[in-house]
């Protein structure tokens, strides 16, 4: 009883006197899918977190850090909210992290606002999430952040006309708008905007329609996995590359499914914030440790988002312990070198400012595997969708 009292007293003192560094155990609740069709995300987050812990130890500043994982299953806002509640009330977590899907992140906004819990988004890429609460910090990217630079780059490369084909759901429509706005602002022309149903299995009709219009570029946004596989195959088989219609994408060639796309993926150009083939010491160290711990793991945007998110949490814990508002304050403007390149936490949008790379799929001569080779870099892009 006495012990419980003293723990409570310590907790009371630390929360009452911010900035006083008293050693305590900080708990981080990670909400992500660990089962079902999206289980790969949760697995990658956990692997990235464990990689970071293996490199940096379990303590930040004077505090020990402990992670608690909760399975949200898939895009399920109700479940996300009740898991967050459980973590905050029963497990008494000081930080939340994870969040693959936009609705899951939106659902916890009122909770973290009330409990003043810093929440690090590892993925969910819709700009407006961060306006839901001051306590959201995002270490992934937003669709505008990668799409707008891609459109501008395409124009600078001499492409003047484009057709967009996006999957007809939230992120697809965001990407379509971002591309059109940026491409037309430069003076380019979007000839046609095709929205493809989420259930599409045969993309030939859409690809043929694009071919008839013979634009300079074909911008596309697809959910990962099977649709991307079929789409890129169809793009190649119908000879669009030979007709000079350039493929422009973002996450389509991400590393987990890249080998599965096969030779069809060769030459596809994308703009994105992380390539597994990024040539830097930080990336080499990250990948080496990841593969040492998990021989089957493949580093991609999801793992790097979680890895940087973990770094951010460590920094916040070292600076402010369990004091939520102080932790967020300490994170704003923070700069660090990530496996993807240099990052800055934007004080205004609370999404990282980062380099966006123009990449092309190539077969690596040494490993024989397909890689996203970086061909150009658009330096330090913030969240361009913040004001939209």
């Amino acid at each position, binding site marked *: 009883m006495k012990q419980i009292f003293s723990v409570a007293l310590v907790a009371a003192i630390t929360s009452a006197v911010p900035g006083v560094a008293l050693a305590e155990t900080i708990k981080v609740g990670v909400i992500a899918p660990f089962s079902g*069709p999206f*289980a*790969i995300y949760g697995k990658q987050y956990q692997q990235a977190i464990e990689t970071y812990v293996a490199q940096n130890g379990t303590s930040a500043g004077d505090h020990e850090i402990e992670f608690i994982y909760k399975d949200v299953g898939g895009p399920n806002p109700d479940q996300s909210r009740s898991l967050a509640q459980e973590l905050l009330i029963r497990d008494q977590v000081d930080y939340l992290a994870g969040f693959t899907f936009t609705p899951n992140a939106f659902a916890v906004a009122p909770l973290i606002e009330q409990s003043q819990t810093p929440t690090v988004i590892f993925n969910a890429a819709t700009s407006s999430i961060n306006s839901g609460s001051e306590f959201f910090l995002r270490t992934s990217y937003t669709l505008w952040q990668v799409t707008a630079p891609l459109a501008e780059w395409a124009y600078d490369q001499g492409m003047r006309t484009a057709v967009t084909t996006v999957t*007809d759901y939230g992120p697809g429509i965001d990407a379509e708008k971002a591309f059109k706005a940026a491409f037309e602002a430069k003076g380019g022309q979007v000839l046609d905007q*095709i*929205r*493809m*149903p989420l*259930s*599409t*299995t*045969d993309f*030939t*009709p*859409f690809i*043929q*329609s694009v*071919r*008839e219009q013979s634009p300079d570029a074909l911008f596309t946004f697809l959910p990962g*996995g*099977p649709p991307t*596989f*079929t789409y890129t*195959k169809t793009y190649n*088989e*119908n*000879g669009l590359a030979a007709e000079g219609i350039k493929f422009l994408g973002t996450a389509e060639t991400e590393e*987990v*499914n890249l080998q*599965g*796309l*096969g030779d069809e993926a060769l030459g596809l150009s994308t703009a994105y914030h992380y390539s597994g083939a990024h040539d830097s010491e930080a990336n080499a160290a990250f990948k080496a440790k990841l593969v040492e711990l998990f021989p*089957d793991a493949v580093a991609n945007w999801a793992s790097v988002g979680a890895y940087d998110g973990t770094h951010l949490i460590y920094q916040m814990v070292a600076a402010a312990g369990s004091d939520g508002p102080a932790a967020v304050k300490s994170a704003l403007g923070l700069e660090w070198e990530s496996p993807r390149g240099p990052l800055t936490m934007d004080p205004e949008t609370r999404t990282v400012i980062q380099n966006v790379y123009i990449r092309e799929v190539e077969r690596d001569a040494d490993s024989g595997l397909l890689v996203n080779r970086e061909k150009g870099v658009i330096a330090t892009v913030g969240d361009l969708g913040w004001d939209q």
Partner: protein
Amino acid sequence: MTLFLNIAVDGIAYGMILFMISVGLSITMGLMRVVNLAHGGFALLGGTFAHWLAQENGMPFWPAAVLAVLVTVIVSLPLERVIFRRIYDFGDLQQVLATIGLTFLMIASVNLWQGSSLLSIPLPDSLKQSVDLGFRTLPVHRLVVIAVGFASILGLWLLLDKTLFGIRLRAAVDNRSTASALGIDTDWIFMAAFGLGAGFAALGGILGAEILPIDAYYPVRYMVLFLIVVAVGGMGSIAGSFIAALGLGLLETATRYLVPDVSTIAFYALVIILLAMRPQGLLGRAHA
């Protein structure tokens, strides 16, 4: 004019893929009348074996495909003897529950074995090429699927309508105890028919993988597609499935060319209208 040719070519090519992935189901569900939601599971197993043989062990495409189909049949036979045999006499709902449970088991097994990323089946160069049709090109593998589709419908028609096996199978399905009393080994007939269905499921999974790529969640992702083909075609009719698959392929392709933004709504609305007018499907027989 080009538009109509495009719709015709793509529609038939896509329709034939639909036929190939659902013909196994029209054998088990249509002919044997077991609500076999595990159909996609057998297609997944076929595709996974083919991936494992071709991609990971470097076997050429055709031998890998044939071997994968055979292995799937071999896996399906004990399943029929141990599990499906008990399911035949269940009511519809119990069959749904039992077979969907089996599907989840297959998904989890493949997930454990190969993970949840795409399981590609590398095609030989001869199938990767495109053929010039004059006004456009078409990939060779789609022509192969069309040819295999025609061969399958012809082979099945001969097997089910012209051979003793076919006659016995239809007799056994219509009245099992009478057939059995007449000296037909119905256990064997059912097992063979079930293996045939599983084999076609695997073949469809492998050949259709260019459009409907294999991954652990394949059975759930495309279940609606298989069921629509069999429902529209009419239970128990292979020819019905064939006509339905081609019709649906043409319909879906046409809506995607002409009204891309509302193509899914247009497609399902037409299917609903068709089933409202012909609840038995195109060539279905009304069961007593």
